[in-house]
């Protein structure tokens, strides 16, 4: 038992932030359960949450990597639409939808890589530069589509549709894909050399460089992963709704970022939690849908979103300051 204290200390250091977000999620559930038990018992509340959650998970988890590496990206909300546009226009023109999905994913990854290279090579502020790219890409999409949406009504006759977004014993397939994505991200972040390097680069990039880690390459890969996640989100949403619309994804910008930080990943880099971010997504998704479901006016939604984000941040403060 001599190492008991340090064991608990290490457990807390490693998992405290994830446990914290789990706590806030549980608390939110209890508040809903007590506040509006009837609405809570209705399955359609949870169904709508489960439709929303996979997309948010695809967007949020890669952002954990990027924030832990010491950068941030806002452009993902537009990359989302560009990738979905590439997919939609290709599928519409008669190209095999499976190939169109692949092309969309590659587009998203490539955009992420370009944004990352721009920021890393020219040493730009990732916040400001990606804000620029956010508007730039959205502008390009609006110009290309003339602000018109693309409908893909025949898409469900292709085999890929039921595989990705069909129903499996009543459960939407995207839940399973999101679950696989969570497991993949968890191992990539904590057990893979890429995730380990992300931690080192975000913690102390000078040290990482001195130890032979290619800091710029690690950061660019993190941006690429964010682009890939955004493309996944955009393509899944387009499949689910049978429609590409040019403003698609914009609404997820702040929600996905909120989920990262509510989930317990600090803004300063070097730390992050995938499990926490999943609960962060849960909190955000239930807030979005729950407020309306319990019969309150939608006008309360933003107020409560803000309140929850602030309370969660104050709570995560208990995990301490940045260690130097």
């Amino acid at each position, binding site marked *: 038992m001599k190492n008991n204290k340090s064991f608990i200390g290490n457990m807390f250091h490693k998992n405290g932030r994830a446990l914290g977000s789990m706590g806030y999620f549980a608390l939110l559930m209890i508040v809903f359960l007590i506040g509006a038990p009837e609405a809570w018992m209705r399955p359609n509340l949870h169904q709508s949450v489960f439709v929303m959650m996979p997309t948010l998970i695809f967007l949020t988890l890669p952002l954990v990597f990027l924030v832990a590496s010491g950068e941030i990206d806002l452009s993902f909300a537009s990359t989302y639409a560009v990738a979905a546009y590439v997919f939609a226009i290709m599928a519409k023109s008669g190209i095999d939808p499976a190939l169109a999905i692949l092309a969309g994913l590659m587009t998203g990854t490539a955009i992420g890589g370009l944004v990352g290279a721009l920021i890393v090579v020219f040493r730009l502020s990732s916040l400001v530069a990606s804000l620029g790219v956010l508007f730039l890409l959205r502008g390009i999409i609006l110009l290309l589509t003339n602000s018109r949406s693309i409908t893909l009504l025949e898409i469900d006759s292709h085999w890929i549709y039921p595989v990705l977004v069909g129903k499996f014993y009543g459960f939407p397939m995207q839940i399973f894909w999101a679950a696989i994505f969570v497991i993949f991200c968890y191992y990539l972040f904590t057990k893979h050399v890429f995730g380990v390097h992300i931690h*080192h680069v975000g913690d102390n990039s*000078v*040290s990482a460089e*001195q130890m*032979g*880690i290619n800091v710029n390459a690690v950061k660019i890969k993190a941006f690429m992963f964010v682009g890939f996640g955004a493309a996944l989100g955009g393509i899944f949403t387009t499949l689910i709704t049978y429609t590409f619309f040019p403003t698609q994804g914009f609404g997820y910008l702040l929600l996905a970022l909120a989920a990262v930080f509510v989930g317990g990943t600090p803004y300063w880099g070097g730390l992050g939690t995938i499990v926490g971010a999943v609960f962060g997504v849960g909190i955000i998704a239930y807030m979005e849908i729950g407020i309306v479901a319990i019969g309150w006016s939608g006008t309360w939604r933003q107020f409560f979103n803000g309140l929850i984000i602030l309370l969660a941040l104050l709570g995560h403060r208990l995990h301490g300051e940045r*260690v130097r």
Partner: protein
Amino acid sequence: MQPIIELEKVTKRFGGITALNNASLKVNKGEVVGLIGDNGAGKSTLIKTLVGVHNPDDGDIKIRGDKVNNWNALKAREAGIETVFQDRALCPQQSIVWNIFMGKELKYPFGFIRDKEQITEANRLIREIGFTSKLINAESPVGNLSGGERQGVAIARAIYNNAELIILDEPTNNLSLNETQKVFDFVLNVKKSNRSVLFIGHNIYHVYDISDRFVILDRGEVVHHLDKENIQSPEELMKIMRDTIKSH
């Protein structure tokens, strides 16, 4: 005998400042070389150029006689050169084990980390270096450690790979007497196993005690190569150093 590493007439500039001017230096197998010089003489720049953190503007770097191209920090480590940097080069929010294996992780195919093996090795290493606190194990974050213990982690990282040349940049800075002695013991052990050490310091007494050869750096230039046989005492070494600085 082939030197492990050689710098030949290396020049490094930062903007308008020449940090290294035509500096040459070599380290042979099994010897301890002491690099001394005043603050700002260019000691750390020389080290960082040697291990590929900075790219030289002019001059050559040779490893075991062969000139290297596109030299960088990873290549230096792969060539068997490990460095304990002055700032320790640690990531304080990460665990001891992640810091020890930083940049040279033990991997399965596809890049997954050999977690258990790394932890076992790290625990063995920190006992070997002599961490005193029982509360410390390989999974503790480095941020919880004292200055001496952090130096221990940096040294553990340098010894794990059985490097042929270990470079120690001001390794005794901010260390207690006891910890300083541990660093000396470590250097002597490396030498005993016929490997080499490049020891940088501004404490002449420390450098004198453990080095076989001295290199004096002044304002970016290597001004003296001295064998220990020709120097009777640290005071004499100190005098030579003072005289060169004055005459400059």
